[in-house]
Each structure stands twice: as C-alpha cells, then as structure tokens.
C-alpha cells in the first residue's frame, strides 16, 4: 500500500507526536508498505530517508504553548505537490485540527483520509471562532483514530463523531536491547542494595514524586546500598534540597534524557516506580519500563491497573500512600523470584503494544477508510493480517 503520513510538528524538536509518527512509519515499512512522511523541517536537517521536508516551521504561540508549525500559501503548494507526486492509497494525518500541514493536507486531499487525534484537546479558542472551517476539515476525514480513551471521549463529546481507539505502540526492541548505564543497577540481595528509578517532572504534583521520596527516605536507612535514579526536566538543587543530607549521595540525577538514554536508564534499575496521583490517561512510561524488562511498581490508578493487567504484570500500591509504597519496595527488592514472575507477565503484556502489532491495527483502519471511499472491499491478506 502507498501511504502518505503528515506530521504537523517539526522533527527538529523532539516530541510525542513526532516519535509516534516515526515509529509508525518504520513499522509500516517493516510490514512491506511504501511510506512517505511529510513534516516541517529545514532542507538541510538530517532526516530519515522516508521524510520529505516541507520547509522551515515558524514558532507560533498557540493554545497556551509555542508550536512550531508551517502554514500558508508556500506550505499549501508543497503539500499539494507532495500529495500529487505521492499518488497515495491512503493519507494519514496527525492532529488535523491544529493550524498545520495536517490541516492543509486534509483540505487538499480527495481520497481516503485517516486522522489520528493524540491530545485530549478540546476546541481551542482560535478554532471555536471558525466553527465552519472546522466542520469542513472534519468532513473530509474518513476514519478517525484516538490514541487514548480520553482523546476518544473528546471526539465523541465535542467533535460529534466516533473514533477507533488504538494506543501508542512501544518500540520494544529499542528497550530490550538497551545497554544499562555503566555501574548500574548494581547488586540487589535480601536486605541490601537495589536501585529504584523515577522518570518525569519531579516538581509536578500529579506525578507523585513526594510519595516516592517519603518511601525512599524511610527505607534507605534500613537498607544499606539502596539507590535512587531520577531522570526528567528540572533543577538538581530543587531535587536534592528535599532529601536529608546523609542520603543525598545515594540519589543520582540525570536531568532531561534523550530517548536512547531513557531506554538505558530504564534498564539500569531494579524497580521502576510510577507514584502518580492522577491525571495519567494511558501510562506510556509503564509499557516502556515493561519493555525494558524492569519490574514496575505503580499507583493503583485505573489506567495503570489496565496496563499492568490488574497487577499481574506489576505491583500496584494504594495511590498517594508512602508507607504502602515502602512496603511494596522492600518486599520486591528482597524477592528476586517475585520480580521475575512480574516481568515474565510484563513481557506478554508489552508484546501487544509492540509497533508491528499496533501498525497492523492501523492498517485495518486504512482498509476501512479505503473501502468507505469507493465501496470495494479489501482482502485480509492485503492488509497484512495472517
């Protein structure tokens, strides 16, 4: 199948949507399809061979943050040319309701269009003012995909339409093959040693870092050699000042890490802790930790419970309760067999989030969109499902 994918955000800046687009494109190519990705980027920036740059993106304050987007007559002409040259069987746009290449592509397209909605954004003020324009864009979309239940809910309630829910995939191999950081995770025997990991904004309340900090501060004195590895955006002084002075040398802060280092970091710990107190719609990081073969300890939130298969693939503790977390940590660090059981189950769970599996589900949506456009039915084999 010839597939054209449009990414609204520039590949020059890392981000969730960009990673999703790249992983999806690579998985589809791996399944034997021809894929071309159109994205804003400078002509001379280093890009994967399947990406077609659509020119420089301009930073524009949008919806409360700064988005780097490309929009205007020059971009429109480039999008048109790409669509005509590409002769695609299906066009797959991401976030078509932002003022971006995606919207331009939808407006220029004639055939089947599949749209993926990533954020659970409601109508922005800019777009609410242009209700008619929004309707014209939505009307040209044949099939919609939402990456989370929350994004789907917004579709149903605000955009007046359904969407197929297909979660983000995980590039499992990138995590299983990652090399642990030198000197990590170190020894872990009953009563001694062990490494605990946390990734994310430790300053943000709903990420729940204080819960983990409390548990660590109480557990560390009784457990010599216990270490904490923290990665994520933030200032190291803010992190350290909350820990008692004698424990500070047992806390290591990596700062903001790249995708590759994230995988290495997840491989460098015995237990990955997700102490979130709410607001996570999916729990991507949990699937990544599972892919890295790391034991996961997570708050008992709905989304986390679903990812962890009700607790079979990872230990759940009462949300926001440091002493429950501390007990769970102490138990698991002492019990290598229990950790192995959890990770074995985690391998099975994560296999279903592997990109080739997710990409096959996306291909079925492509087939549904093509069928709905010209009424002919596509064979199972052609979609690539055995």
């Amino acid at each position: 199948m010839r597939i054209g994918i449009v990414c609204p955000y520039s590949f020059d800046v890392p981000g969730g949507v960009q990673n999703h687009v790249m992983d999806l494109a690579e998985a589809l190519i791996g399944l034997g399809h021809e894929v071309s990705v159109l994205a804003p980027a400078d002509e001379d920036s280093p890009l994967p061979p399947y990406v077609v740059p659509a020119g420089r993106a301009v930073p524009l304050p949008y919806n409360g943050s700064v988005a780097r987007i490309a929009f205007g007559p020059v971009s429109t002409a480039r999008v048109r040319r790409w669509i005509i040259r590409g002769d695609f069987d299906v066009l797959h746009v991401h976030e078509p309701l932002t003022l971006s290449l995606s919207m331009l592509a939808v407006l220029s397209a004639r055939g089947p269009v599949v749209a993926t909605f990533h954020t659970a954004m409601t109508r922005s003020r800019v777009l609410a003012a242009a209700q008619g324009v929004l309707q014209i864009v939505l009307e040209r979309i044949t099939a919609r995909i939402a990456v989370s239940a929350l994004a789907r809910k917004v579709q149903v309630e605000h955009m007046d339409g359904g969407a197929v829910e297909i979660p983000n995939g995980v590039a499992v191999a990138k995590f299983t093959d990652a090399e642990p950081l030198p000197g990590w995770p170190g020894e872990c025997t009953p009563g001694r040693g062990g490494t605990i990991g946390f990734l994310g904004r430790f300053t943000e309340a709903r990420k729940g870092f204080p819960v983990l900090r409390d548990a660590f501060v109480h557990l560390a004195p009784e457990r010599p050699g216990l270490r904490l590895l923290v990665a994520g955006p933030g200032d190291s002084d803010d992190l350290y000042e909350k820990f008692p002075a004698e424990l500070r040398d047992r806390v290591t802060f990596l700062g903001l890490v790249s995708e590759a280092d994230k995988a290495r970091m997840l491989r460098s710990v015995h237990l990955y802790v997700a102490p979130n107190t709410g607001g996570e719609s999916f729990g991507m990081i949990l699937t990544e930790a599972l892919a890295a073969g790391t034991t996961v300890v997570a708050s008992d939130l709905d989304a986390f419970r679903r990812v962890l298969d009700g607790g079979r693939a990872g230990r759940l503790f009462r949300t926001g309760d440091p002493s429950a977390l501390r007990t769970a940590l102490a138990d698991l660090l002492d019990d290598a067999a229990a950790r192995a059981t959890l990770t074995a189950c985690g391998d099975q769970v994560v296999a279903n989030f592997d990109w080739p599996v997710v990409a096959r589900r996306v291909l079925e949506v492509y087939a549904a969109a093509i069928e709905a456009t010209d009424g002919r039915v596509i064979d199972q084999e052609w979609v690539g499902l055995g």
Partner: protein
Amino acid sequence: MPGMWWAVGATLVVGLLAAYLGWTAGRVERLQARAESAARALDAHLLRRAAAAAVLAERRYGVELYAAARIALDARPDEREAAENDLTRQLRAVQLDPGDPDAEAVIAASRRLALARQVHTDLVRDARAARGRPLVRLLRMGRRKPWPQYFDIDDPTLTAPADVPAG
C-alpha cells in the same frame, strides 16, 4: 454614472452567491456519495461475517448458529439490524477457539465489520448534517437521493483485543 456601479455590485453579489450555492451543492453530493460507498462496504462486511459464521457453524457449534447466520444473510432490509444483532449474540454465546482457522476468520471478520460500522456511522452523520442545513433544505439540494440511513447494531467485536487496555 451610479447606475453602472449598481449593476457591477449586483453582478458581483449574484456571482458570489452562485459560487457558494454551487459549492454547497457539490459538498452535499460528495458527502452523500461517500455515505453510500460506506453503506456498500458495510453491506459487504456484514455478508462476510455471516458467511464466515455459517462455514464455522457447519463444522462445529451446530444448528442454532447456522440458522442465525442464514437468517442474517437472507434478512430483508427492515429486519436486518435485528438479525445481525442475533448473530452477534449467537457468536458470543459459543466459545470461539482462536486457534481454529475458521473461528479466527469469524473473529477477524467481526473486527473489520466493527470498523466498517464505525466509519459508516460517522459518514452518515456528516451527510445528514449537510442535508439538514436550512439553505440546503430550502433549495431541496440532493433531493434525488433518499436520506442516508444509520445502521444501528450492537458493537460486533467479539474479543476486545485482550491485550489492549480499554484506557
């Protein structure tokens, strides 16, 4: 010569109005045609599922499932939704073994049917919204074709991919 400017202005307004009406008519037609294609695709997927269920029922599970599949295949348009729901219920009642290729075919056909139905519902909604606009109704655009109809059945997905959390 103010008269000439009046004429120019009036021509311009009429021209713009004609362009808008032409565009709207094209839009209604396009959405309508698309809803029809989606209905054809949905029809094909319904037949595929029923056929796959009949093949499976002949080998295993027996008469009840077979009868439900036949009834779904032969149903008149006004009975079809009920017949399809009945087939879904029968399929849910039997324990499908995903290892059996015939059962796997039914599961796959159901999954594709669920997608076709979702897309059909969305496209019918778009088409009906366009036809329901006051100007479109007033000028009776698209009147040569009947209003696109929803096909209202239960979600035919058999095994919610166990793998994927609903959230």
